[in-house]
C-alpha cells in the first residue's frame, strides 16, 4: 500500500516538474502524404506518408500503414519524392570574410620583427562569431535541397574552427548544431612574414605539432612533480592546439592538389592526428595513398583542375576538357576503389551549381545512390550527427525535402523543405505567367554600367539552359558569379553575387534582351545604374 502511495507521489512530482518546464514553442505537425520516400538508410517506399511532429520524424511508411493524426496539417505530395535534407559538409555560406587584421602598411615596420606575430594563427577564429545572415543565401540553399551546412573559416594556415548549422530560420543561435566541429588547416602561406613559402608552411605545421606535444608533456609532468619541475609558461596557441594534437579531436587539411593530399597524409601519420582530407579533387591521381591512409574524405565537386596541374597548364582546350570530362570522374574513381566520402561544395559558392556538379559526377559514373549517401548519411557520420540527421528514420530530426523529379537528375526541382520540422516553401523557379524564353543569351557579352558616379566596363559570360541562366561577370574589381538568372520571354533577371572592396553584396539586374543586346537597370544598396550589354561575336 505504502509502495503504491509512494509511487503515486513520485509520479505527481515528476508530473509537476515536467509541466513546469518552460513551454517550448510548439512546432506544427505535418503529414506529408502520397510521396515516394527515399530514406537513404532503407528501401524506397512508394506512396508513403511521413508524420512530422515537434521537429522530429514521428513515423513514416506506406500510406496504408500510417495513420494521419487529427492535428496534422496535410501536405499533399502526390508525385513528389521525399529525401532527407542534404548536408554540405564544407562550405563558406554566411561567412563574413574579413581581411587579415592589421593594415598592410603597418604590418612590417623596418628593422623589427613582423608587427603581427604569428599572423598565421587563427586557431581562435570561431566561425560562429563571424557569420552574417542573408536571406537570399538561405533561400538558395533551401532551393537546392540543402538543410545542413558546415561553415569553414577563411583560408589561413591555422584557419580556425568550423560551425555546423541546421538551416531552420533566420537566426544563428537556433541553427547551431555544433560550434566547434573541426580545426581547419591550409597549405597556404602568410603574407609579409614567416612562412612565405609552402615548405615553410609544412615546417611550421611540424614544429607546431611537436611543440604542442612537448607542451602537453611539460604540463603533465609539472602537475605530477610541482616541486621538481618548473611551471611551463602559458602559450595560448599551443593551448588551443592541445585538443587536436593530444586529445585527437579532428582536424581538416584543405588539399588543393595531389601533392597536398600526400603532404596531409604525411603530417597526419607523423603526428597521429585525427585528420580529415578536404577538397581533394585530385584524389584519383593519388588513389593508392588515399586508400592506404583511410582518412575521412570531404571531396569537392569543384572540377577545375588545380593551378600547377598539368591539366591546367597546357592551354585552354585541355583545361576545359579536364574540367568537363576528367575531374568529374574523381568521385566515381574513389567509389570504385571502395572508399566512402562526403561530397561537398568547397569553393563552389552557389548551391544550385553544387547540386549540378554532383549530378555531373553521377553522369561521370558515380552511382546515384552513392551520390545521395555522400550528401546525407555519410557527411552525417563524418560530422557525428548521424544519430539524428542524414536519413529519414523515425526519431530523427525532421530535415525533409520534397522534390519534383528524382534528385540528381536534370530538371529536378525542390518544392518544399522541412528543417527541424519547420516548413519552408520553396518558390518554384518558373513562376506563374512565366513564358518560354524567346532568345538564347549564351555567350560572351560586353557590359557597360553607367551610374551618376561611374562608368564601368565588364565582360559577362552567360550560359543558358531553358529559362535559367548562369555565368559570371569579369571586371577590374574581380570575378562575380551570377548566382541566379531567369529569362521569361524577353524579360531578364539576374542576381549577381558581387564583392566590392572586400564587401559582399547582391546586385539585381532587370531588363530586356534581344539576341545581341541586353538593356535594363541594375540595383544595389538602394541605388541603381543603367546597364547595357552587347554580344561579343564568337570568333570561331
Amino acid at each position, binding site marked *: 500500500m505504502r509502495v503504491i502511495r509512494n509511487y503515486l507521489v513520485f509520479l505527481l512530482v515528476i508530473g509537476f516538474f515536467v509541466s513546469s518546464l518552460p513551454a517550448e514553442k510548439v512546432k506544427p505537425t505535418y503529414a506529408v502524404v502520397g510521396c515516394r520516400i527515399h530514406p537513404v538508410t532503407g528501401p524506397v517506399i512508394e506512396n508513403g506518408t511521413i508524420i512530422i511532429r515537434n521537429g522530429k520524424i514521428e513515423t513514416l511508411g506506406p500510406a496504408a500503414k500510417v495513420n494521419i493524426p487529427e492535428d496534422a496539417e496535410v501536405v499533399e505530395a502526390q508525385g513528389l519524392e521525399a529525401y532527407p535534407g542534404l548536408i554540405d559538409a564544407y562550405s563558406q555560406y554566411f561567412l563574413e570574410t574579413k581581411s587579415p587584421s592589421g593594415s598592410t602598411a603597418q604590418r*612590417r615596420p*623596418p*628593422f623589427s620583427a613582423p608587427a603581427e606575430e604569428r599572423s598565421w594563427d587563427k586557431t581562435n577564429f570561431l566561425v560562429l562569431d563571424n557569420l552574417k545572415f542573408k536571406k537570399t543565401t538561405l533561400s538558395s540553399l533551401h532551393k537546392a535541397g540543402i538543410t545542413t551546412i558546415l561553415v569553414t573559416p577563411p583560408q589561413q594556415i591555422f584557419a580556425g574552427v568550423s560551425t555546423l548549422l541546421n538551416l531552420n530560420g533566420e537566426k544563428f543561435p537556433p541553427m547551431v548544431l555544433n560550434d566547434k566541429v573541426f580545426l581547419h588547416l591550409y597549405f597556404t602561406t*602568410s603574407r*609579409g*612574414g*614567416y*612562412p*612565405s*613559402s*609552402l*615548405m*615553410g608552411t*609544412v*615546417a611550421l605545421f*611540424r*614544429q607546431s605539432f*611537436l*611543440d604542442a606535444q*612537448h607542451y602537453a*608533456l*611539460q604540463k603533465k*609532468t609539472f602537475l*605530477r*612533480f610541482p616541486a*621538481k*619541475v618548473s611551471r611551463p609558461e602559458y602559450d595560448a596557441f599551443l593551448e588551443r592546439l592541445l585538443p587536436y594534437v593530444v586529445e585527437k579531436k579532428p582536424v581538416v587539411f584543405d588539399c588543393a592538389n595531389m*601533392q597536398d593530399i*600526400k*603532404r596531409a597524409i*604525411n603530417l597526419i601519420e607523423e603526428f597521429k592526428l585525427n585528420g580529415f582530407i578536404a577538397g581533394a579533387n585530385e584524389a584519383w591521381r*593519388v588513389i593508392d595513398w588515399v586508400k592506404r591512409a583511410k582518412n575521412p574524405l570531404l571531396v569537392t565537386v569543384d572540377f577545375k583542375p588545380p593551378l*600547377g*596541374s*598539368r591539366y591546367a*597548364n*597546357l*592551354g*585552354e*582546350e*585541355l583545361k576545359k576538357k579536364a574540367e568537363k570530362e576528367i575531374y568529374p570522374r574523381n568521385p566515381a574513381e574513389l567509389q570504385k576503389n571502395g572508399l566512402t566520402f562526403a561530397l561537398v561544395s568547397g569553393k563552389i559558392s552557389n548551391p544550385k551549381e553544387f547540386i549540378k556538379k554532383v549530378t555531373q559526377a553521377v553522369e561521370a559514373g558515380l552511382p546515384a545512390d552513392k551520390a545521395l549517401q555522400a550528401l546525407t548519411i555519410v557527411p552525417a557520420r563524418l560530422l557525428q550527427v548521424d544519430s539524428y540527421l542524414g536519413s529519414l528514420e523515425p526519431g530523427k530530426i525532421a530535415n525533409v525535402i520534397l522534390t519534383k523529379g528524382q534528385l540528381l537528375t536534370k530538371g529536378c526541382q525542390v518544392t518544399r523543405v522541412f528543417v527541424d520540422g519547420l516548413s519552408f516553401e520553396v518558390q518554384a523557379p518558373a513562376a506563374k505567367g512565366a513564358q518560354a524564353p524567346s532568345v538564347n543569351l549564351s555567350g560572351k557579352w560586353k557590359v557597360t554600367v553607367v551610374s551618376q558616379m561611374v562608368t564601368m566596363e565588364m565582360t559577362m559570360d552567360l550560359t543558358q539552359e531553358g529559362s535559367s541562366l548562369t555565368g559570371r561577370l569579369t571586371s577590374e574589381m574581380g570575378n562575380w558569379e551570377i548566382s541566379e538568372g531567369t529569362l521569361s520571354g524577353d524579360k531578364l533577371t539576374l542576381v549577381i553575387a558581387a564583392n566590392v572592396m572586400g564587401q559582399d553584396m547582391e546586385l539585381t539586374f532587370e531588363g530586356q534582351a534581344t539576341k545581341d543586346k541586353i538593356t535594363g537597370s541594375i540595383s544595389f544598396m538602394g541605388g541603381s545604374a543603367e546597364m547595357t550589354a552587347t554580344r561579343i561575336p564568337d*570568333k*570561331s
Partner: protein
Amino acid sequence: MKWRKFVGLILAMVWLGLSPLGAGQDLFIKNGTLLTITQGIIHGGDILIIDGKIKEIGQNLTPPKGIRVIDATGKYVMPGIIDSHTHVALSGTNEASVAISSKVRMKDVINPEDPAIFTALTGGVTMVHTMHGSANPIGGENVVLKMKWGKSSEEMYVPYAYRTLKFALGENPKRANMMGFSAQPRYPQTRMGVIAIIRREFAKARSYMREWERYNQLKKNKKLVSFILPPRRNLRLEPLVLMLQGKMVARCHTYQADETLEFIKLSKEFGFKIGAFEHAWEAYKIVKELAAEKIGISVFADNWAYKMEAYQGIAYMAGFCAKHGVLVSINSDSGERIRRLFNDAAKTMRYGDLSEDEALKLITINPAIQLGVQKRVGSLEVGKDADIAIFNKHPLSAYTRCEMTIIEGEVYFDRAKYLEEQQKKAAAKKPHKKGGQK
C-alpha cells in the same frame, strides 16, 4: 604564336601519357659509340640493360630474345647528365622571410608536374640536385631527384644521395639586390654578419646536440627519472646537428674568395663537411686551398658579371680549377639552361683546355661524386643504373642533339617518336581555328 601553340600541343600529348613511350626495364642498346666516362670510349658498343641496371657492356653482345633493341648506329651514348645545382620540380624556392630557414625541406614540396622536368630530359639530364634558394645564410634541406617525367614524387626521389643543406654568402643573403621590392631590411646586412649568424646557429646547434646527448645518456644508463623531460625538438637546429654529426653536408652559395675561405674556416671550427661551393666565381683564386681541402665546386661555364660580386668571373674558371685538382661540376641553376649542359661542358675545352673526357666528367661523374651517388650513376659501367642519354653527334659538338633519354632502362624521352606524334596531332587538328587560344 602558332609555334608556341604547336609546342604546347605536343607537350600536352606527352604529358598526358597519350603516347606510351618505351616501357619496361629491360633494354638493349646496339652498336653505338659508348662514352663510358670512366672506362674510355667503346666504338660499335652494345649495352645490355636488365631490371634497369647495366648488365653488360661491350662489342658484339647478343640481345636476349624479346628484348627491346635500340639501334644506336652512328650515335653517341653517354651516361645521363647530372645537374648538381638547380631549382626545378619544386613548389617554391626560398623561405625568404627569415635569415635562418633550416627547418624547411625541399622534399616536402616536390612538384612532379614541373614542365622543366621534361625540358631537362630533352637535354639528356637524368638526375638533378634541386635546391633551396640563396635568400638566407642558411636555407633549407635540398633533394636529389631523377627526372622520371610522369611518375610520382616518391618515384623521383633518390634516397641514397647525400643529405645536403643550403648555405649562402654574400649579396643574396644580405638581400643587397632586393631593396627595391620585397625586402624589409633584415639582419644580416653585411658579409661579416652572414658568417656571424651562421656561426651563432652552429653554436646553438652544438649545445642543442649536447642537451640531447645528455638526455639519451641518462636514458641509456637507466638513470632517467620521470620528471626529467626530453629537450624540446627544434626543427631549425636538427639539420645542423646532422651536419655536426657528419650525416649531412653543406652546399654553400658563394662568390668572393675571401668569404669562401671564411666558410672553410667555419667548417673546421665546427667539424662539418662541405659538399661543394656553388657558383664560386672566384674559386680560381683559391684552387690550392680548395684542392687541399678536397672541396669541389659547382659552377657555370660562362655567364658572369650579373651582379657586383660576380664581376671577377673568367671563362677559364671551370677548366682551370679542374686542371688544378678541384672536383668541378657544371650546373644550370635554371629550368631552361638545364637542357644544354653539354654545350656548357664543351666550352671548357675552348676555355680551359680540357680533354673531351675531362669536359664530360663535369656533367656526369663529378656531380655524381658531389652528391654521393657515384656508385649508382655518372658513368657507363656494369652494375650501375641504366641512366643513359643518346646523342646524334658527339655531345660536345656544337651540332649535337639529344635523341633519347633513358632512366633505369625506361625511355622517358624519344625525340623521333615525339616529333612524329606532334605532327600527327597537328594534322588531326586542322583546319586551324582563327583566333585560337593564346
